[in-house]
């Protein structure tokens, strides 16, 4: 459905903003595009939607480059920046303009206002909208022509927890109807309950991708000891790579028995040893992105 192949964007002679990124989004799935700010998410989405020409590689929608679609808004609903709306227009006028350009009846605009919960604010100018309301208006614009795919950049930005739950239901419903969703986020907890698949990007490169469950299964174990430093030394001696997790715990990409034996051999007292479960996804995100992030960049540190 959405296919991104070896997409690369280089500005000037520095490191590429996006470096050989490839992934696909299948119909009926929600894909989370995850990475710290500045990792290249927005640049990738802008190349996908024909706003930025790639240095090399390609991006297609159902096999066709976005800019070659005769009426792209009818195929892909796009929201890249909720603030890209004229502050002097009302919410309803914003939608009616888009409806007219897309060639859908004006009443679709009113239906979408209803759908995103802005029916009460339709006559207010966008200037007076909160960021969350602008996100809802942006999503209404994206849904206007009943597209088969949605591409949303940081859609949860500015939404309250109730809004995030609303968006989750909306996107899952959209995918359940056979639609394809690609959404980006720099906050894992915003998307972990929404997405089926994850593509994790750091410093322009994809550092991990796959089904959410598979990525979680590979996240190893979490271990705590009375002496963390000695435990870390023992694990390294056993050929493992312990990564720091919350509150002095270590995360190791192996099974519990291997860690237990290494600790036993070094005489280290363990206080906790368990599989890294869903709650540990944050560690996974952190370790994956920091592994792929250039030295000196430490955003997303917990």
């Amino acid at each position, binding site marked *: *459905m959405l296919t991104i192949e070896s997409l690369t964007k280089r500005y000037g002679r520095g490191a590429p903003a996006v470096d050989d990124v490839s992934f696909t989004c*299948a*119909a009926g799935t929600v894909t989370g595009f995850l990475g710290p700010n500045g990792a290249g998410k927005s640049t990738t989405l*802008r190349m996908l*939607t*024909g*706003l*930025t020409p790639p240095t090399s590689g390609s991006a297609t929608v*159902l*096999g*066709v480059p*976005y*800019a070659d*679609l*005769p*009426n*792209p*808004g*009818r*195929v892909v609903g*796009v929201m*890249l*920046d909720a*603030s*890209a*709306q*004229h*502050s*002097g*227009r009302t919410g309803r*006028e914003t939608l009616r*303009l*888009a409806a*007219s*350009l*897309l*060639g859908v009846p004006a009443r679709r605009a009113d239906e979408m206002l209803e759908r995103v919960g802005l029916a009460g604010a339709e006559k207010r100018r966008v200037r007076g909208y909160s960021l969350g309301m602008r996100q809802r208006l942006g999503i209404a*614009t994206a849904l206007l022509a*009943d*597209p*088969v795919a949605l591409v949303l950049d940081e859609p949860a930005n500015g939404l309250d927890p109730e809004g995030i739950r609303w968006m989750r239901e909306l996107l899952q419903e959209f995918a359940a*109807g*056979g*639609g*394809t969703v690609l959404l980006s986020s720099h906050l894992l907890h915003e998307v972990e309950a929404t997405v089926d698949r994850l593509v994790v990007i750091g410093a322009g490169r994809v550092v991990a991708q796959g089904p959410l469950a598979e990525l979680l299964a590979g996240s190893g174990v979490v271990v705590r000891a009375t002496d963390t430093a000695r435990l870390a030394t023992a694990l390294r001696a056993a050929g493992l790579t312990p990564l720091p997790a919350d509150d002095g715990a270590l995360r190791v990409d192996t099974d519990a028995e291997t860690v237990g034996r290494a600790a036993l051999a070094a005489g280290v007292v363990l206080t906790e040893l368990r599989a890294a479960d869903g709650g540990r996804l944050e560690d996974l995100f952190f370790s994956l992105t920091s592994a792929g992030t250039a030295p000196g960049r430490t955003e997303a540190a917990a």
Partner: protein
Amino acid sequence: MTATTTTTAAPQAALPAAPRIPFSRIVSVELRKSLDTRAGAFLMVATVLITLVPVGWQLTHLTDGVPDYDLWVSTARGGVVLFLPVLGILAMTSEWTQRTALTTFTLVPRRGRVLAAKLAAALVLGTAVMLLVLGVAAAALLAASGLEGTTPVWGDAASVVGGSLVTSALNVVMGAAFGAAIAQSAAAITVFLVAPTLWQVAGTALLGDDAQWLDVFQAFGRLSSFELAGHGSQVVTSVLAWVAVPLVFGWVRALRRNVS
């Protein structure tokens, strides 16, 4: 709702059959965009007022008899001519100033079509404004003749009407050229108001009669009065320098510009 086919290995949803967005639709949306904000509405109200007020004043001060049609047109369009370039400027700048270019170019990725539609919409609007001016002038002539009991003098009305429409189009296009080149509403309006006038003064001081080769308002005057004889190449160079060059420069830049 997506129909799936299994002809190839991976099931692919069919591409929804949607025709290409017609150019006329983009033009009508751009037209609506230039009128549906307070700024747009204000500009239109101001244009109507600036047409009606001097005509009204003239109507109540008919001391020297009833003016001919061309004089009524001059009275009615005097202020409007200042507003016409602003229509062109705003058509090209407002998307960038308001950051809505991202949304617009996402819906119509071929930016050239959007830019052409903006120019066309501004021309339509400018023509509508000028038709209003011509209509108000005609109504004023008839009213004044009725009041004074004289026969209305239309003179060469056809060339007055034609010349006014040409003036309108030239001013809108020149405004659009400045808007495209500068892409920031306030700065583009300022430069438009200052630069050609400054050149009229400075150019004559520096180049003497040769300044005509770059005097765009004189060129517009000749074009709208259909008096090109002997000045054709001067008109062409002036229009190239003040209209074509900024328009092409701004257009090419807008096609390539990073939309943020």
